[in-house]
């Protein structure tokens, strides 16, 4: 259970990532979801940018990659921390021991995936 101890020792890091993710989720996500997930699919707006060849060019920009990286991973850590603490309140003892591993491990796994995907574009 050495790994679990190490994860628990990193508690300040998980709290910081939770805070940073809260900022990203609050300031950046609403506008992105509204335009990309609702307005464009409904045909309210049809920006030139959202076709394959333009997107490949835009996402190829290192600054855009860094932006997308944090826009994906920080909200994941934010959610991971909050869901972990809520589930902990259910007081299922055997589950509580592995909750940090499941959620911080999951968010870290997806961080690695995000990194690989962004590097490959």
């Amino acid at each position, binding site marked *: 259970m050495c790994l679990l101890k190490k994860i628990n020792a990193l508690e300040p890091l998980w709290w910081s990532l939770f805070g940073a993710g809260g900022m990203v*989720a609050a*300031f950046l996500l609403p506008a992105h979801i509204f335009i990309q*997930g609702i307005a464009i699919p409904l045909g309210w707006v049809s920006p030139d940018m959202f076709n394959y060849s333009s997107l*490949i060019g835009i996402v190829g920009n290192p600054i855009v990659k860094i932006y997308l990286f944090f826009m994906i991973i920080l909200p994941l850590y934010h959610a991971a921390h909050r869901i972990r603490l809520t589930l902990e309140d259910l007081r299922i003892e055997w589950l509580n021991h592995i909750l940090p591993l499941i959620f911080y491990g999951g968010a870290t796994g*997806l961080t690695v995936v995000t990194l690989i995907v962004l590097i490959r574009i």
Partner: protein
Amino acid sequence: MAHSMNSISGKTEATKTYRRDIPNTWWLKKGSYFLFILREISSVFVALYAIFLLIQLCALSGGQERYESTAAVFKSGWMIILHVVIWVFVMYNMVTWFRISGRIFGAKPLSPVLVTISNYIIWLIVSIGIIFLLLKG
């Protein structure tokens, strides 16, 4: 299970901890409890959107054909409805976040209301900036 020393016999004896029975519907009992659960659930939708972004980027890295078939899925009716639900929860997450920011950073000479209002002003400017970049960038 707590253990207590029996002072007479000196033996350790198991005593039962009193646990008040909390029904699974406790969060329906009070408005503030319900809003608390809503805030916690909103983070699930925050994560869901981050995963959707990752899926779209994954498709983009897989070539034009794969990107276009994924984009078609994201244009379907049920996906749009799901995004409206996600957006409502993310907006709620934002409202609670700015309220908490006010409580945390609103010490004198500032006030919680002042911090919360300035958060909304910054949010508005950032959102207009993002929308402008997405539509005209």
